[in-house]
């Protein structure tokens, strides 16, 4: 009898635990939908300034219907970008043929939007009309 009671108690705890997990997952979904980066529909004009490892700057102006930066950059004439795909999207290591190798010398390509470092990777960074992006070669040792 006591064993059955204990088993029932354990089962109740498991069910409560599962219910809490489901509720927390739903709460995370709500948070994501409420606070995720908002994208802009329609055609947008944007600029991209690339500052390479020698400090040389080149500016591009583009127009795009793309909602996120990656596609907008891929459409940009004269601009090239390469990197490795991860579950979080493209990790950019080469811009216009210049590769930043973090493991070799602590260098990386930093992305800024309107003067502020981007909070998201290129696959998730929204593009808004009149956005000014900067892609700068930086070094962790600086």
């Amino acid at each position, binding site marked *: 009898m006591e064993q059955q009671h204990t088993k029932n108690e*354990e089962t109740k705890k*498991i069910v409560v*635990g*599962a219910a809490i*997990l489901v509720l*927390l*997952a739903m709460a*995370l*979904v709500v*948070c*994501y939908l409420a*606070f*995720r*980066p908002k994208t802009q529909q329609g055609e947008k004009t944007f600029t991209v300034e690339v500052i390479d490892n020698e400090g040389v700057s080149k500016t591009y102006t583009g127009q795009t219907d793309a909602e996120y930066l990656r596609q907008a950059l891929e459409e940009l004439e004269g601009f090239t970008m390469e990197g490795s795909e991860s*579950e*979080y999207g493209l990790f950019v290591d080469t811009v216009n043929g210049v590769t930043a190798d*973090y*493991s070799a010398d*602590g260098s990386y390509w930093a992305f800024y939007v309107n003067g502020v*470092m981007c*909070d*998201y*990777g290129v696959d*998730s960074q929204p593009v808004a009309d009149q956005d000014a992006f900067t892609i700068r070669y930086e070094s962790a040792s600086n």
Partner: protein
Amino acid sequence: MKIARVGLMIASLEAAKQALGSVPGAELVTLLLILYTLSWGWSVLYAAIAFVLVECMIWGLGIWVIMYLYIWPLLVVLTMAFRRQKSVFFWTIFSGMYGLFFGALCSIPYFFIGGWQTAFAWWIAGIPHDLAHCVGNIILMALLYVPLTRAFARLRHSV
């Protein structure tokens, strides 16, 4: 023998990570660290930390190193706190919770880098990955807890 066992744990963690590296949300590290801890206790902390160092050798240094240096040992500590639990359902929910809040735990260094807005934005952007991680952990633990627990019990008695 303990050193050899920890070495095998490190190797298996790394192999498991590489094996499922291309599958979004699926990773065996959480499952293995939990089951190793339930079988061999605090010594698994050495494996968790050494695993991070091996990852550094493969992938180089980055902010992720700071995250990994507390996330995986924390999993070992939490598992030890609940080590009396023997239910596959408990550990399935536990590993699901860890996957669900993995991103929140990872966002902590960003708080010190760019303030709470940066940490919050980083966490929010990663929520879809956290949900996939939760589901992946639940499925793997539900499927593998019983067979692996039995296998590790046999290993413990024979080694």
